[in-house]
């Protein structure tokens, strides 16, 4: 599903590569934690999957497509198959829960009848039934992140990228978030989650890929976060 082959990424004006000859394979339906300290290359990895950045060398395949051969014109179509969740939720403050989720479908031109059908389903999947007409500011952090997950998942992507989704949320609420991610993973969606949260990684017992200074230092199935942190 995601295939990195010897990928190196150096940002302009920086000597040290953000990713240094990284090769990794993520299969369909896998749940992978991407761990490592700040600046180790986790976010760069996710940005490369979205083709927000291009690698300096190496090749990347996502959902069967070679990203170097994907024209800019087709990038939006790639992104429709990838859902994204961030630490800062990125909800639209002037739209309610339903509208925030529906926005993702509206802007890719889905018919209204389809939107009316699937949005409530997804809102229920993330555990926000009955809160469809709340505004983001009326919700807790955990609930806002659930809205973001609903938006990321509403188009049934093949891959869900989560960049520190529990970074702004207290540990008790984080468990609920992880349950939703797990539920999404069980529908067959590949989940790739970058995180600092050792407790979560340890409790989930999923595959762990650890980055340090842009290199993969560990790739372990059913792993734990590690001891250094």
């Amino acid at each position, binding site marked *: 599903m995601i295939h990195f082959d010897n990928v190196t990424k150096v940002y302009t004006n920086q000597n040290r590569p953000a990713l240094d000859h990284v090769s990794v394979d993520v299969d369909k339906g896998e749940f992978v934690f991407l761990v490592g300290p700040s600046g180790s290359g986790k976010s760069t990895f996710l940005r490369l999957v979205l083709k927000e950045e291009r690698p300096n060398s190496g090749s990347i395949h996502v959902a069967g497509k070679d990203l170097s051969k994907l024209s*800019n*014109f087709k990038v939006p179509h790639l992104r*429709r198959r990838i859902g*994204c969740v961030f630490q800062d939720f990125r909800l*639209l403050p002037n739209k309610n829960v339903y509208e925030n989720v529906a926005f993702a479908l509206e802007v890719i*031109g889905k018919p209204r009848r389809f939107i009316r059908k699937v949005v409530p389903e997804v809102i229920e999947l993330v555990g926000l039934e009955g809160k469809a007409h709340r505004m983001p500011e009326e919700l807790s952090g955990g609930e806002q992140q659930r809205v973001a997950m609903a938006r990321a998942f509403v188009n049934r992507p093949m891959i869900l990228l989560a960049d520190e989704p529990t970074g702004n949320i207290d540990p008790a609420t984080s468990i609920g978030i992880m349950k939703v991610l797990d539920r999404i993973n069980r529908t067959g969606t590949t989940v790739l989650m970058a995180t600092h949260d050792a407790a979560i990684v340890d409790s989930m017992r999923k595959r762990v890929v650890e980055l340090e200074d842009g290199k993969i230092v560990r790739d372990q199935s059913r792993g734990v976060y590690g001891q250094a942190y």
Partner: protein
Amino acid sequence: MRANFIFSEVWIGLRRNLTMTIAVIVTVAVGMALLGVGMMINSQVSKLTGFWTDKVELSVYLCTKNAPFEPCKNKGTVTQEEKASLKQTIEALPDVERVQFENQAEAYKHFQETESNRTLLSVTKAEDMPESFRVKLKDPDKAEAVAASLKGQPGVSNVVNERDLLESVFGFMDKLRYMALGIAALMLFAAILLIGNTVRLSAYNRRRETGIMRLVGASNIYIQLPFVMEGLIAGLIGGVLSGVILIIVKVFIFESIQTYMAAPLGWDTVAGVITATMAIGVLICVLASFVTLRRYLRV
């Protein structure tokens, strides 16, 4: 693609940057109106040129009793013999189409018809008017040569190429036209910069929305369209305003000077000018939005 979604986005964008939108509209309106005035003067001049070129004559003025011209000094009024030989000379010239003699009475009548200065009218008598030959040329461009050959002839006080008189009027209109076009160019430049700024502001205001649109895979055109539409609508409103200004200019300025201009500017020309300026205005607005969008909106 859903039209009402795009339009609500455009409306929100225009309202958020209301002052900038107004600035764009006013600049476009004034710039386009000046461009239109330039074009109207242009077609007025070419119309007049065509009209007058057919009628232009050489006037060969003859000496009167007290003519102040150098060739007539100490010679007094032109004699009958001089007139007769002059007529023959002129008729013999190959470029001359026909010659017409204007006597003092006719000249006086003509003068009274065209002159508006009352003091001058009251003191001028028929005897003061010079007699003249009106020479119509086959080719108006030969006027200089014919005038030069007639200037030294006995009894001739002065030869006037009427085209020179017209040329000074045309020269003035030319200056007006270049001024209008110059200011129009400056205004258009200002409009482009203003539109660039507006687009930057609205790209900044909407960075959340566009960021999410990008993330969920909205196509580039879907993301860019609201911005380009903002430019288009501002350009369109500006264009309509400039059309109104041009109609006012036509009614109050061109119509009032038409008394002196034998070839009036028709409404069909004005309509053409308005259409052209509106199209240019809208095109410039859309292009300016599109170009700045590429800089400020990552897709």
